[in-house]
């Protein structure tokens, strides 16, 4: 099953890597964004099925962007990405409507599994 995804991360390296993992699993990346403001705008334009959202980003951080997206589309499926050691942020994101989270560095199998699970939910 092909899932349409948007990747949000301020690092091109991270976006490329995540794209590599997801595309190898047959998914389609419909948009990429490098900060929270871009993420909200592109969410509205592309309406991805799932959005992966980095937390620490310039201009507008991932949690603010998540809240804004949820306020615009209550059914939005957003998976947060975060480094180990920031579990408190994941908690906050969960309360703001994030469906799941991925820890960096990404483990391809875990990424694929989480995306499938969130898509099926």
């Amino acid at each position, binding site marked *: 099953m092909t899932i349409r995804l948007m990747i949000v991360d301020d690092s*091109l390296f991270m976006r490329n890597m995540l794209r590599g*993992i997801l595309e190898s699993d047959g998914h389609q990346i419909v948009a990429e964004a490098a900060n929270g403001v871009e993420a909200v*705008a592109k969410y509205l334009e592309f309406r991805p099925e799932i959005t992966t959202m980095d937390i620490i980003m310039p201009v*507008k951080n991932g*949690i603010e962007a998540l809240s*804004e997206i949820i306020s615009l589309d209550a059914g939005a499926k957003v998976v947060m990405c975060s480094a180990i050691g920031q579990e408190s*942020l994941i908690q906050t994101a969960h309360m703001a409507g994030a469906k799941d989270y991925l820890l960096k*560095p990404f483990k391809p199998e875990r990424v694929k599994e989480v995306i499938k699970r969130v898509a099926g939910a």
Partner: protein
Amino acid sequence: MDMSQYRVLFISESREYLRSINDLIVALEKDAGDRETIDSLFRMAHSIKGMAASMEFGDIAELAHKLEDLMDRVRKGVLAFDTGAADLLLEGADLIEALIADIEQDSPQSRDIGELIQRLADYHPPLSRKSPQEPRQIPDKTLELPLPQTSAPPLVDERKGERRKRMTDSPQTVRVKTGVLDHLIDLTGELITNKYRLMTISSQLGSASLNEACSDLAKLLRGLHDEVMKVRLIPFAAISDRFPRVIRDLAKKSGKEIAFEVEGREIELDRGILEELSDPLVHILRNAVDHGLEPADERLAAGKSATGTIGLTAHRGNDQVVISVKDDGRGMDPAKLITAAIAKGIINQEEGSLLSAREALMLTCVPGFSTAEEVTAVSGRGVGMDAVKSSIQTLGGTLQIDSTPGKGSIITLKLPLTIAIIHALVVRCAHLKVAVPTTNIVQTMELKRELITTQGKRKVFSLGEELIPLVSLNRIFGVPLAPITGAAIPVFISEVGGRKIGFVIDSFIGQQELFVKPLGRPLARLKGLAGGAILGDGEVVFILDVANLL
């Protein structure tokens, strides 16, 4: 998962972050309360950590993690950002850069990161006299905000059109390998050479339709050339942004107080020129710090402010980019330079007496010349102004020095906008065709014989109030001189070492664009030649490096 495919991107993106980190640390030292800079530093260290961890570069990840931690303490107001913190962060950034260079060159070195990691973790600023500078209380933009409770959602559909328009308006960018850009300019250059070949054939055939096609081709090529040049342009900031860090380090080493100002960061230059410009500029800045600026006590005694000022400016001139480095230091005295040069046996007494003030200043660019009384830790012995001058000239540029004793010096570099494809005047000397870059030509003229006079052994003529020496290009190349016919001789005037010289040639052939190619060995070692190019008729011409001809 095969991570090797992401290696190049890891290296380039990490370096971008490191560059910004350097700039931001230096900026933060000037304004330690700037919340946005603090946040950016934190975020960039965090990004490097994440990337390095993904690549399984443990040392880099660990170092970046410690930099992030330190910045986090600053962010939270636990730690004041002071010089000690700046030094540690810069040291950390340098070590990460070294580790990245190892990865790039595939040569893992055993570098001790443990010691620095310990110092980063243990860092506590010494108790300061006044209370530490608190970060300005601006609501934390990046993290740990109470979540905004959903207010009325914006009316999405009404705004959608506007939003989409805004997104298409914003310039989209792509990353291109620099090798591709170099290849594009090479191809464009070859096309231009080919255009001249077609034009030559067309005029031989006398075909009107071929002629028309050629002139259309010429128009299209001009467009292509302009666009290719544009994508190769990079703002001056690409190199100038690292100079504040350079100056900061130099200031620390020399114990001088320095205010550094950069103007014209946005001025765009060809990538090829910009890359070659960095080292010469660092040399010039170094000299300004070391030889130009006086120590604080000397400045105060001279009635100046204790802090010396160095200004770096870039601006666009006519078909040129002008870059200058100005200091308000002790300046240079032409008379002293001449005395020193005579003492060192670089020139003799008589030559010394003939030098103008500007020519005397250029003595600093003669190999082996230095006015520094002692070797210093910063710039060593009068660090290679000769090397600086020759690299600027190799780029087709010129270097000029102005100085007022007691007031300071200005070094001015004038550079062409591009090096690969140039406009040149093709001239004839006996059987030779030679191309002179138009940027190196002040004026061309048909000089009436009766205006030429003799001064000592030299032939000269006056142009306005200036007396200009004449030199035969034929004689320089060792080709036969043209028989004397006609009342006027063709001359082009160029500036050599700050002085105008009239070059006598046999005839002007015409102006055209040339695709400059390096000469290769052994021709590249010939003084006075900047490269070669192919004319439309297939003939090879040498491109003159006027500044190094004499």
